[in-house]
């Protein structure tokens, strides 16, 4: 098993999409475009996802409380050949107007260290373990806000609730753009891994979780919403995917080939 080489693919992709102006920058711009029906559809889809997740409830803001803004951002995802494969719309909370100590407390979120990743790769290669990768869909939407964090957000631009346009959203779950989203998502993940799935958090790297039963070992490396699963047998990996699916929505990326810009090649089955 080996690892190497990084291409600045992401930077390149960003440059290309900028040049071709595939993505509208504002809602108003999106509306003027011929492909607006496509964008409109994904906006509705995003609103439905947020509604299902119970991200907020409409409420009257307390007098003097801080109300943060919200904004739509649009993304056109492309495949390797440069064809648009899907449109995405995200509602982003404008977290820059949050006040520390009032609207948010901790903002840290650990990610697996490169040395830990290489160590697990080495162990996998030495003991012929299987490595798979999953991605957690809308990871930040799974974070839960505590009762201490009362956050009011303006209703999504142009998509106000029909009967109560003057109410604001009292957030229950985290949203992209909030200061504490990363931290709260990590807390939620720890809760799932430790309490529900019976994993142990590694002492030296907080983003590494493992579980051992006799000779069977499963190790999970976490990088925000990317989980790399290493296990002594395929059954353990399949089971893990089924378990975590009971708590969060995932995309199954199959065998590990690419991790943090590092290409992984398996030269033995």
């Amino acid at each position, binding site marked *: *098993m*080996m*690892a*190497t*080489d*990084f291409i*600045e693919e992401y930077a390149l992709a960003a440059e290309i999409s900028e040049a071709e102006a595939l993505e509208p920058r504002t809602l108003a711009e999106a509306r003027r475009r011929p492909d607006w029906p496509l964008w409109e559809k994904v906006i509705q889809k995003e609103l439905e996802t947020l509604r299902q997740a119970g991200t907020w409830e409409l409420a009257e803001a307390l007098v003097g409380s801080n109300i943060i803004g919200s904004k739509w951002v649009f993304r056109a995802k492309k495949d390797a050949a440069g064809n648009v494969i899907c449109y995405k719309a995200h509602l982003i909370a404008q977290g820059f107007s949050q006040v520390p100590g009032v609207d948010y407390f901790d903002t840290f979120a650990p990610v697996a260290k*490169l*040395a830990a990743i*290489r*160590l697990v*790769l*080495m162990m*996998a*290669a*030495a003991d*012929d373990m299987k490595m798979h990768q999953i991605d957690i869909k809308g990871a930040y939407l799974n974070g839960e806000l505590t009762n201490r964090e009362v956050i009011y957000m303006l209703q999504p631009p142009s998509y106000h609730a029909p009967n109560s346009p003057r109410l604001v959203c009292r957030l229950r779950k985290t949203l992209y753009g909030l200061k504490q989203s990363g931290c709260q998502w990590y807390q939620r993940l720890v809760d799932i891994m430790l309490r529900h799935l019976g994993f142990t958090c590694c002492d030296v790297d907080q983003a590494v979780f493992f579980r051992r039963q006799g000779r069977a070992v499963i190790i999970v490396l976490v990088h925000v919403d990317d989980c790399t699963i290493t296990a002594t047998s395929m059954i353990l990996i399949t089971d893990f995917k089924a378990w975590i699916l009971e708590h969060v929505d995932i995309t199954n990326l199959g065998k590990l080939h690419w991790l*943090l*810009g*590092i290409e992984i*090649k398996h030269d*033995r089955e």
Partner: protein
Amino acid sequence: MDTNICLTTAQSLSTTSEYAQMCNVSYHEAVGSLMYAALGTRPDIAFAVQTASCFSTKPGPAHWEVAKQIFRYLKGKMNLWLSYGTTKQDMMGFTDTDESMAEDRHAISGYTFLIHGSAVTWSAK
């Protein structure tokens, strides 16, 4: 990195022509991307990148040449991979320091730890 190249802050920008030459160079970004390679899978360039990064604040043409040299080296050695699981042997560690040889009198230290004969952690600073 060539052993006969010696980088110092004296090679930083001094003349206007040097300034004109360097003003469009994104040295910091270049060294930053080399740094990720060095941290991720390339222990072989760790020391060279460390040396180049010392001059990020005020790079001169000589420093830029070294940075470009590292890119050329990487391009030539693209087929080098970290390879795990080839042998079984005990953990080995190597470490070395020099004592304030650099012009700023900071000690440079480096280490690498090998498990089963392949590098898992390393550092040069």
